[in-house]
Structure formats: structure tokens, C-alpha cells
């Protein structure tokens, strides 16, 4: 048990270091970017004079040296104050919380979809390695992995929404409907296409890895021995195949959080889905510095959590690590 506590503490320490590193890099990138926070705040078409702008800059401390500005920002951050978003005119923390709820539904759905579909494709292809079916599935995966998610999203939108009219063209809820009247079915209806688009980025990765791992397992000595003991091909996959490919597949699936987050930026943009990814795009386009920094830090936490869970899960599922302790 002591080992776990030590592991968790060192991992959390590493996460803090990572956050500090990312925050410094983000801060440096933002300060050296051509975005002028005052300009972004007042808007380019306002009639505010240069003197007034200078006053705002002085009030915000923009003339202070960068290190001092960074320290001020981190101090506020530690107090839970991430600043006010310029684009949405709301505290950044509030936007992050709200948007993440919407995104979470989308990402979890896509994540589960890609995991299950990818795993199944991998098993079917791997157990028929070398056959026509395997080649078809493998080609399908290569096509998927080399196709940008936003393009697939546009295709789905053009075919399923515009031409066939099966799904709405965007947003998470029907336009012009009071929030109280929105049903769960409405939400699901709006979720399907974005979730499908987002899941596509993950499918080929998990499928190809699962396929290769299953091929390795089927060529292992223990499968040969299982065959010698009279197990049929189906029994071998059921008893030894699934058991041995589940751990790498699950680990991989948790480690794919970064692609999930990156994909959600594009998928949400295509479907105007009001999630975190969408907020990131808006923040970038409008020079909304506080929101941009907030999203960046949040994405670090999110991806780190995924990897952390992958590591923990690996330890829990693999008896060689779980029981190796007492040896």
C-alpha cells in the first residue's frame, strides 16, 4: 500500500511541475504574440483615445516587467481567479465549468464509441490476419487515420444533415426552444454526429494496436500450447486472446485523452457545438487571453488525468504488477 501512496504523491508532484512549466510557456507565448490585450478588450472599432488606452494598460499592470506580471497572474490563479473572459464577459472559471459539462458528454460518448468499435475491429482483423476481411478492415483503418476529423465532420454534415435531413446542422440543443423545454432526446439527437466525428480519430488507433497485439498473442507459445491441449480457435480467443489484449487496449484508450481533446476543438467547431473546444477557438480568434490560458491549463489537467488513470489501471489489471509487490 505504501508503494501506491508514494506513487500517487510523486505523480501529483510531477503534475504540479508540469502545470508550472506549461503556464510559463503559455504566458511567454501570449506576451510575445501580436495580441494587444487592451485592443482586444475595447474592440478595434471603438473611439477610445490612445491616452485612455494607456490608462487601462497602466491599471492592468501591462507596463510591469513580465516576471512580475506572471507572478500576479499565478497569485490570482491560486485564489481561483482566472480572470474575466473578454469574448463572453464572464469569469473564465465559470465558462470552463459550463463548457466542460457540454464537452464531457460529447467526449465520453465519442471515447466509448471509438473504444468499442476499435476493439471489435481489431479483434476481427487480428483473428483473421492475412485474410481478405483483415485487409479490408486494415485499409479502412488506414483511411480513417489519414483523414482529418473536421473533413469527416463536414462530409457527415453535408450528407446526413443537409441532404438527408436526419440530424440538425449544429448546436447542442434545438434553436429557439426554451431551455426548460429541451428534452434528453433533443440533446442526443444533436450529439450523434459530433460524437461520431470525434470517435473516428480514435477508432483506427485502437483497432490497429489491438489487431497487432492479438496477432502477437496468437503466435505466442501459450496459444500454441492451448492448441495442443485441444482448445478451439474460438476458445483460444475467448480464454487467452481477450485477456491479453484488454490491458494494452484499455491503457491506450485512457492515454488517448490528448487526441480526444484536440479532436474536440475541430469537431465542435464544425458542428458549432458549444463545448470547451469551441470556446478555445473563439478565445484564439478574438484574442481572449484569460480564456485561452484557462483552456490551455485545463487541457493539461485533462490529458494528465487520462495518462494517470491509464497508469493506475495498468497496475490494477496486470497481476504481474499488482502481485509483483510481495515477491
Amino acid at each position: 500500500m505504501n508503494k501506491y501512496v508514494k506513487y500517487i504523491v510523486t505523480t501529483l508532484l510531477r503534475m504540479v511541475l508540469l502545470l508550472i512549466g506549461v503556464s510559463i510557456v503559455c504566458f511567454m507565448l501570449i506576451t510575445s504574440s501580436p495580441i494587444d490585450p487592451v485592443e482586444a478588450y475595447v474592440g478595434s472599432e471603438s473611439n477610445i483615445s490612445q491616452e485612455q488606452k494607456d490608462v487601462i494598460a497602466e491599471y492592468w499592470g501591462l507596463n510591469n516587467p513580465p516576471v512580475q506580471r506572471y507572478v500576479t497572474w499565478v497569485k490570482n490563479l491560486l485564489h481561483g481567479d482566472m480572470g474575466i473572459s473578454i469574448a463572453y464577459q464572464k469569469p473564465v472559471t465559470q465558462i470552463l465549468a459550463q463548457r466542460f459539462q457540454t464537452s464531457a458528454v460529447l467526449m465520453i460518448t465519442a471515447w466509448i464509441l471509438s473504444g468499442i468499435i476499435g476493439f471489435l475491429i481489431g479483434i476481427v482483423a487480428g483473428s483473421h490476419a492475412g485474410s481478405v476481411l483483415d485487409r479490408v478492415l486494415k485499409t479502412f483503418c488506414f483511411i480513417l487515420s489519414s483523414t482529418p476529423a473536421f473533413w469527416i465532420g463536414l462530409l457527415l454534415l453535408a450528407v446526413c444533415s443537409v441532404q438527408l435531413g436526419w440530424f440538425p446542422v449544429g448546436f447542442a440543443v434545438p434553436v429557439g426552444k426554451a431551455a426548460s423545454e429541451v428534452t434528453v432526446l433533443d440533446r442526443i439527437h444533436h450529439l450523434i454526429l459530433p460524437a461520431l466525428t470525434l470517435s473516428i480519430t480514435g477508432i483506427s488507433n485502437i483497432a490497429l494496436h489491438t489487431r497487432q497485439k492479438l496477432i502477437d498473442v496468437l503466435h505466442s507459445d501459450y496459444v500454441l500450447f492451448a492448441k495442443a491441449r485441444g482448445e478451439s480457435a474460438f476458445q483460444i480467443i475467448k480464454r487467452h486472446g481477450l485477456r491479453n489484449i484488454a490491458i494494452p487496449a484499455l491503457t491506450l484508450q485512457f492515454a488517448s485523452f490528448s487526441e480526444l481533446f484536440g479532436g474536440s476543438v475541430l469537431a465542435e467547431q464544425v458542428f458549432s457545438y458549444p463545448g470547451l473546444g469551441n470556446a478555445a477557438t473563439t478565445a484564439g480568434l478574438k484574442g481572449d487571453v484569460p480564456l485561452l490560458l484557462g483552456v490551455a491549463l485545463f487541457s493539461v489537467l485533462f490529458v494528465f488525468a487520462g495518462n494517470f488513470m491509464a497508469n493506475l489501471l495498468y497496475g490494477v489489471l496486470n497481476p504481474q504488477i499488482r502481485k509483483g509487490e510481495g515477491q
Partner: protein
Amino acid sequence: MERKEILEVKNLSVSFQMYDKGLRQKELQVIRDLNITVHEGEILAIAGASGSGKSLLANAILGILPLHASVKGTMKYRGESLTLERQRKLRGKEIALVPQSVGYLDPLMKVGKQVVGVNGSKDRQREVFARYGLGKEVEQMYPFQLSGGMARRVLIATAMISNAKLLIADEPTPGLSTEMAKETMGHFRDLAKEGRGVILITHDIDLAFAYADRVAVFYAGTTVETAPASDFRKGPSALRHPYSKALWEALPQNGCKPIPGTQPYAGNLPSGCLFAPRCPYRTEACETTIPVRQIRGGEVCCNHAT
């Protein structure tokens, strides 16, 4: 030798379809004209150097060779032809393999469940574990938690859970201490006493000479001589084939005398006698197919054997 035959292998050849340069296919022969017989209650050792195709013989008997292998010759189990269909029915039930190491066990499946397999039962597994002094706690262990001796007994248990009449032990002793190797061989002897046939595939020649009833000497994918183990204990004068004699003389306790040349590998085999290129008695007649002859209670595949 009045005992009933369990397995008879005659003129067995195994070859693989391989891609040579480009798309040209070539047939790679790894076992050629191999003959062995196993009787009830006996241990037949198959002794030979690495790369002579010994493990493939085990896979061929069980019918678990890869798909691109082709098998010729006849195999009979209890007098009836051993077809692929019959092999599929018998393996794990009447013919069992005892593998080399724990590497042949699923690393993520508990030992108990694994020994039960698809044909055994929990009760039978407990019985077999008790016979080999494996406690109940071993059931719940994973293969990597087994000690060397435990692993050896678990591997034998995988075969004993069935009521196999023919055991094929593939290199069951490498890496074991002399004590443990003796103990393992003791287990196989007990199993043979109960009327089973045991094929012991090994490159440990001393072990084969000491514990087997008969020894088949394997060279470059074929059996050059099969003789009672006592002949091998006596020395070259009791042996028939020049390779068996050379093998005996190459043992440390017999002077460690090597003979020139190396064993030819699959894909590069001479026609006629496989040992001819290294044989001091070679004549022109050795370049054609050599018949198997019975001499002094053993079988030998040599024109010059007396």
C-alpha cells in the same frame, strides 16, 4: 517389446512453403523420412542437437503445425491412422504435450483455471495437484509466481488432468538442477509404469541415455538410429550408426572428441544419407536413399552399419 504400440510414425516428412527471392516459392524440408514407434509403458527419448527439428515432430504428432507446413508419411495412433480430424479430437485428451517452460502458460490466467483447461474439471485438478504435492494456494497463483520446481510440476499436471495415454515432453529439463531433473524424470517414469507411452524430446544426451528405455538419435530432421538405451550406456561397440558413435565419443566423460563439419540445416540438405558429408565410411551408395535396417534389436539407417 511385446507391449502394444501406441504410436507409429513412418517416413514422416515435414516441409514449409517459403518465399525465396522475390515471389518464387520454395519448399523447405525440415523433417525427412523419420521413423519412430512408441509402446505402452516405455519412455522413448528423441535425442539430437538444436535445430534438428525435434520440436516440430511434437507439433506434427499433435497436428498443430502452422498452416503453411505440409506433412507426408503415415502416423498411426493405436493402430488407426492419425488424421488431422483425429488429431483434433485426441489432443489434450489422449495425447498430451508437456511444454518446456512456464512461457507456455498464459501469463494472465491463474494456474488452477489454466490446468483445468477446456476438458478438465476442478475436482480432477485438485486430485492431480495433490499427487504432485501442489497446495491449494497454487491454484490462485499466476505463472510468474511459480518457483522452478513448482512450474515443472504444474506443467506435468496440465498433461495429467487429461487421461492421456501418450505424453510428449518437449525439453522438460533444461535450466533445472540435476536434482530437479532427476525428480522430473522420476515423474515421467511413474507415468510410464502406469502404462502410458512417453516421448522425451531432449538435447540432453546423458539424460536420455540414463532414463529412457529406448533412444532415437535425431540428425538433421531424421532418425538415424533407434536402439535400447542400454546400448548407449555400453558405448560405441554396441551402437550401429557412425553418428551415434560420434555422439557418444563427443560426451565429456568419453573424451570430448569432436568430428569435423556441422549438421546441415533445412533447405541445404544433401540427397541420400544426411550424415554422408561428415562420415568416414561414405561410399557412392550413400548418395541414394538409404533403407532402414534391423540390426541387433535396433533400427539403423546406414549402409555400413554392422
